[in-house]
């Protein structure tokens, strides 16, 4: 039987692999018959800013660019429900018009209910 799964990301993009790698984990949960929500909190909310660009330098040296977390979100936006904690977005000065389309803002109260309703909560 499918489970309700929340994957909560507390870590910012790029400094650690966590945010990038949590997204395919959520998508695979859906592929296996579960219902997955991915929620960005704390420094994790930096992942929801649109217009991300990566690149360490000359591709002749680096072979390939680090993929963007934004690209991974957009790739999976049909499969996974994406949320971000409103107070953590505000704290970091991220405006509504900077947020990737279809990522919903969620209050702490709503997040608490969501955690209680879920079968599984995984925190990165």
């Amino acid at each position, binding site marked *: 039987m499918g*489970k309700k799964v929340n994957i909560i990301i507390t870590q910012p993009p790029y400094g650690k*692999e966590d945010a990038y*790698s949590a997204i395919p984990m959520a998508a*695979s949960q859906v592929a*296996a018959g579960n219902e997955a929500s991915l929620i960005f909190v704390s420094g994790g909310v930096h992942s929801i800013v649109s217009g991300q660009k990566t690149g360490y330098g000359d591709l002749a040296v680096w072979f390939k660019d680090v993929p963007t977390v934004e690209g991974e979100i957009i790739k999976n936006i049909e499969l996974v429900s994406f949320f971000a904690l409103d107070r953590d977005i505000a704290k970091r000065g991220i405006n509504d018009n900077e947020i990737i389309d279809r990522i919903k803002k969620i209050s702490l109260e709503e997040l608490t209910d969501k955690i209680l309703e879920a079968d599984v909560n*995984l*925190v990165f």
Partner: protein
Amino acid sequence: MTEKQLTIVSINGPYRDEGVFTMIRLAHAAKEKGITLNFFNYLDATVIAHRDQAPKEFPPIETIFGNIVKKGLKKPKADAIACIKCTDARGVTKYQTEGVIIGGLYDLGEWTAESDKTILIG
């Protein structure tokens, strides 16, 4: 009554912090209680089961982890999967200890659906 099943997702490598030791202590305690275990080693945790570890001053993680998996051939069962994208990235795909299967995130999705509880230890 069917046996209880616990899936443990690990994301950290051994030694730098205590997380993996905590995970193994927890797994051992669960096994003693007769709980079926599924280990999903993701990201740096794919180094947990890397062969030939020989730390001078710490318990050998691979041996302890491998023993839990090997003893899980009987009830309670203990299975272990290492994520292939992560093992390939770290060059450890061919060096996993006996009993660890190379798999993917879809396997974790199936384990999550089947298990009574799924936890992530970071």
